């Protein structure tokens, strides 16, 4: 079994890291160019979906368990909501980023704020995408009674 689909497995290994690197580029370049958290999250998830397609979902589940994904979703949302609450605690309105760096003359606070928020979006979208993939790909052919 190990020697089956050798080309596919090698190509997956070659592609995996660049895909994640590209995801990070789209993520952190999002406020200057096209891209942002949602797109980056999807690209990030694609790397794992590719892994799942070639090695089987069970192997991917071992590499990235569902528990970790649930925590990733929550942490991502907390980056987003936490940034909003942080600006409230600093005395501004919800998501009023300028209070993060009030001394700045070129709205540096806006940059920090959107980077944090987009990072949260990316994390949550990636985790959600992979979760959806797990559920579709890992679905039982016949639904058992106790699954309801």
């Amino acid at each position: 079994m190990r020697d089956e689909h050798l080309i596919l497995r090698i190509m997956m290994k070659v592609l995996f890291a660049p895909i994640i690197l590209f995801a990070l580029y789209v993520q952190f370049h999002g406020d200057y160019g096209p891209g942002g958290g949602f797109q980056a999250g999807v690209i990030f998830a694609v790397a794992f979906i590719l892994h799942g397609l070639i090695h089987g979902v069970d192997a991917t589940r071992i590499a990235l368990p569902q528990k970790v994904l649930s925590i990733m979703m929550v942490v991502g949302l907390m980056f987003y909501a936490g940034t909003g609450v942080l600006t409230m605690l600093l005395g501004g309105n919800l998501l009023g980023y300028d209070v993060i760096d009030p001394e700045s003359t070129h709205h540096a606070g806006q940059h920090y704020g959107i980077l944090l928020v987009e990072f949260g979006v990316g994390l949550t979208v990636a985790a959600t995408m992979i979760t959806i993939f797990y559920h579709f790909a890992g679905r039982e052919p016949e639904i058992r009674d106790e699954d309801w």
Partner: protein
Amino acid sequence: MSLIEQLPVLPIIIPLVAAPFCLIIPNGRIAYFYAIAISALTFLSCIGLLHGVAAGGTISYYLGDWAPPLGIEYRIDLANALVLTLISGVAALVIPASYPSIAAEANPKQIPLFYGAMLICMLGLLGVTITGDAFNVFVFLEISSLATYALVALGGRADRRALTASFNYLVMGTLGATFFVIGLGLLYQATGTLNMADIRVQLLENGTNRMVEAGYAFIIIGMGLKAAMFPMHLWLPNAYTYAPSAVSAFIAAASTKVAVYVLIRFTFSVVGADFDFVSAMLSYVLMPLALAGMFFASLVAVFQTDVKRMLAYSSVGQIGYMLLGISLGTEAGLQASIIHIFNHGLMKAALFLSVACVMLRLGVHTVDGFNGLAKRMPFTAAAFIFAGLSLVGVPLTVGFVSKWYLLQAAFEADRAWIAFLIVASSLIAVVYVGRIIELILLREPPEDGPLFRDVDGNPVREAPMVMLVPMWILVLANVYFGLRTDVTADLAGRAAASLIGGQ
């Protein structure tokens, strides 16, 4: 930070920050107490907002410090403060009552997710109500709808028909949301803005055209679907019937009311009833549909053998009363409509909670379960009777207040025949509620057979305290607001005046 300044955003941000943690809470009971705390906090902040608006007038909050019309604005006046209080209040009472019933009906592993979905559903409904940005309405509408589909589907363990009911609701709800967003797109194209108040300003300045009229029509159809306006109500009976009992109690009290609120908002303060096409729509589309719904849905309710389905059809009929108030196009009609939004939420939450108690003990929500209920579960039976009388509109209850103001509005608009129809359709409510009350009071409980003992095979006992107390708070609220009419009627009157006066 000053708490008062940030108050407008708290009803959204508290459940938004809190709900995701339900995903990683391992135990249903912990999630339960957690959800109680969050819904209570949200309710308190909504009360604070209502108080602030009643005392100091409209509150406006700029998200991210971006001023409208570019940024998203939360704009709270009396009309939405009342709806906010209703939604969060019902949630704060239904969530404490939900644990025994959801533990019996749903998969134990899914209970933390249930509370997460419940909080997100509440958050979405609050968001639709609080926002002053038309597109933001759509976003929050989708948030609440997606949570509702999941909540309805949770009933699938007890009855698999919940899955088709949920899917049906998903298709219809998505159609409604799509129509709504098409309508918004047309309005945006015509006015170049998405801020509700600014759309109104632009329309007054530049007048209307076909695009605005088409956009408004799309919005009415989309929201009509969401509000279960007759004849677009077909998703509702199944969704309410097969959802877990606690979910039925919450969505019956809150979700369609929010859609009616959006109809009011778009009709009176976004487009404005002073345009001819709006007033024509009110009298030639909304009024016939409202009247048809009042009669048709109430008649169908009479012949149901499932109490939840009966209450669901009754909800469609009651939506008819709210739409009728709107369709009169007068300040009194709007006031009656807002009062009924609030009051109907109180009645239906109490009724569905009492059905939840019966479901918990006897495992059925058909009429058979109600035979001789007064002897077996006296407190549950009494709550059903009081809330049922309120639904009919008996004096001293909120139902009477609603009908009274609606009748007054009809007479004031010189349409006595409508007043006659309101009374006539109330008589149908007497039939369907009276039928169940007859079973509760006059029949004997079964001597043997499947419903002689409860689901565990023990003699039938009263429902647990955690369900009785919230249910009775709702019943007492039915009586309290039926006596202290000045609270709701005064606030709703001022809300209606500001909605109409904004023209």
